[in-house]
């Protein structure tokens, strides 16, 4: 089972993502509702993948990812950032702070599934 952390302030979105990943199978899903919680959880246990929203209260996704890339224990975790913004500037910013991929909401279920499976190297 691959451990995934979903970080998004909207429960609806977390539930949406959870449903998709659970249907795909092979994922152990954890959730956080803001950047601070996400940061704490990611540093506490070792995840195989982080799906991080950009706009969140307390600490946004950019800051959270930036912090994680500074810590040796989370330096290498595949991180996919998800945002409502499709502008080049936002995409670049995500990569600058260390995301490995960028998706724009609403993410199609099959794209979400495929990207997640690729990112964790799920056994086909």
């Amino acid at each position, binding site marked *: 089972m691959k451990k995934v952390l979903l970080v998004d302030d909207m429960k609806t979105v977390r539930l949406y993502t959870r449903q998709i990943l659970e249907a795909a199978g092979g994922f152990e899903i954890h959730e956080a509702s803001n950047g601070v919680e996400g940061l704490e959880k990611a540093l506490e246990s070792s995840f195989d993948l982080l799906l991080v929203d950009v706009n969140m209260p307390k600490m946004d996704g950019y800051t959270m990812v930036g912090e994680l890339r500074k810590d040796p224990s989370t*330096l290498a975790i595949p991180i996919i950032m998800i945002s*409502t913004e499709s502008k080049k500037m936002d995409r670049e910013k995500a990569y600058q702070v260390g995301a490995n991929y960028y998706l724009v909401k609403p993410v199609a279920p099959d794209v979400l599934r495929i990207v997640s499976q690729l990112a964790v*190297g799920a056994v086909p």
Partner: protein
Amino acid sequence: MNPLLGQFILEARDLLEETSKGLLQLESNPDNMPVINGVFRAMHTLKGSSGLFEPDFLPLTKVAHAGEDLLDAVRNRELPFSSKLTDLLLESMDLISQWLDEIEGAEKLPAAALADGVQFAAKLRAALGKAPDVEEVVGKGVGKGDHEGKAAPSGVGWLSSMSAQKLAEAAKKGGSAAMTALCYEPDPSAFFFGEDPFYLVRQIPEIILFHMEAREPWPAVDGLDPYQCNLRFMVVSCGPLAELTHLFRYVGEQVQFTAVTVADLRPPSPAPSGGALSGSSSVSRTDSEVFQAILAEQLFILSLPCDAGCWRGRLVSMGKFLTNCFQRMGFTEAIAPLEKVIKESESVRNFEPVRVFLAPMVTGIPKKETQKTSLPSLAPPVSQAEAAAPQAEPSATKILKIDQSRIDRMLDLVGELVVAKNSLPFLASRAEKEYHARRLGQEILEYYGVINQLTEELQASVMQVRMLPVSSIFQRFPRLVRDISRKLGKNIQLVMEGEETEADKNIIEVLSDPMIHLVRNSLDHGIEDPSARRAAGKPEEGQIRLSAFQEGDRVIIEIRDDGKGVDPAVIKAKAYEKGLIDEERVENITDQEAIQLIFAPGFSTAEQISDLSGRGVGMDVVNTTLKRVGGRVFVNSVKGEWTLVRLELPMTMAITRVMLIELAGAMYGVPLEIVVETVRVERSDIHRVKQQEATVLRGRLLPLVRLRDLLGLSSDENGRREEAVLVVRPTGEEIGLIVDDFQKGMDIVLKPLEGILTGLPGYSGGALMGDGRVLLVLNLKELL
């Protein structure tokens, strides 16, 4: 219901509330930037989560989107905030709210939703001063469609919008032959011209790619005209062009031919600016498409400048990410070489080795791309301050959203527990008396003590859970006052205070209707219209003040308006007319008392039944509603100046402590809160004073009442030497109740009397005791 849908509805309602609240705030204070931003964000979030349910909730997304754009213009100062804008936005909130109700019941939007949504969104956009989008004003009978009406694609552009699979198959079939791409849009009235588009299309030779779509969104079935052609055909054929043009000779102007080659059939490579895959739910992607997109993005990432702090993270995480991708795709032979170049890059502190490795893997990217990244130490540092977000604030109180029925269940269980524990003393007593097991009896009592303690704490904390702030009722009033005052042409300000005051959930629920009625009274009959106020020398703006606060164990709600007040003379006259008071009373009744007459059943002074307050919900209903839960209502007023309605309610409702008393062989309960003490009075100390029995207790005269008589029970036959007297203070004066005997105090779950016993005066309810007997709890205020 799908939990996702349920969750969406919950969140959407919260967002709507937030938006409405913010809009009302902005009306009085339009320059409040934080509030504008808050409202914008709420709309944005609503649009986002609605978008998860496309295409079903498309209308909702559209309206939210239009609202968001409107608010965006406001916050960019492109559009000034106005009352009209608020009206429009509030209207759209109402529409969405209705839709949410529909979704909650039917799990989908009503049939008219798309038409309504498009229309509304156009209205909202019109306020922006821009013409509505072409897509909003789609032709006749807009109804349910699976995509917006598309303009006819020009040239070969439409080819690239075909799915990769179709293109690949077409390429395979076509090979290196000459091909023609054609786009055929039959005249809508083709039927009446005797044309048969389908027949024509079926005649096209050597079709290697075929696609058919609707030009405009399909109307709903009742709006559909089956004789109008709404189709567009897009075909690639290897047949000779001459043959094709000959085939379509009669409809030449409706067809576009373009010569194409197999190269045009190649699926478009991930565009440089749109590398991120967006969620287009109509096109499904394959693993390899996504993989390709990912690879291309990695190259893009490597081209971005990077400072000393971030390069290592970028490199190592990319290595892990790509290794996993290769693993998943089965390209296991690429994994070891990848690791090698990652290590190499790490040692030279340069992304070049990885870039060189990846570039050939990505199709469609010319190999000559040379975006060499400079040594990290020399790159301009990316200011970390840019990416820094505001510091995390200390976490505020965590809030949990709970399904109300779960809380109710939990509270019921606690209530039952409280009652059940009461059986233990009985049990202990039985152990001792029936089974002569004194030790056992003692131990049971000991454990009862422990359980009692725990239960009391549990009860206390669970009662806290039931406590709700009155703001849950108050929050509807700004909107109500605004709408109604505008409707009536009156200028009214609403002031609310003490909204955080808490009371039991049941109490709050009971308060709701009476308060609405009272506020409407103030709006309708209380506050005068501007000209009347001016004539009276009052400020044109009237004020309604809602206050909530705690007084001891009671919650007080006051509704005060500075309107025309209550005229005692009018009340008296009306009451006399209705036969509620006689002439003598009319003479000696005080103004204060007269005002209270409005609570008398059968009284109502609404001169005209306005649609606002004249629904038969009179003041007497307010009165009885409050009394039912142990509350009271008072009115005070100065004619021409102000009116004050005061609601008094108990703070908690569920569990009552009662004192058990014995009367004529049965047990009754008296609320412990009114019990002062228990005494035993010698017969000889009971005197008769003015027809009433009384005794002297600590130097004061205590009137006595025989409860048996009061309840209509048989008189006590046994002459007693001393009487058991329960001293109570139901209304402020002390009274002694003569009972047969007292028992202990006990916690009970007070349940209202039902069925034929409902509304029986003198009893506030019944309860089930630990031993299964039913206890009637006395309402002494009513009895005495």
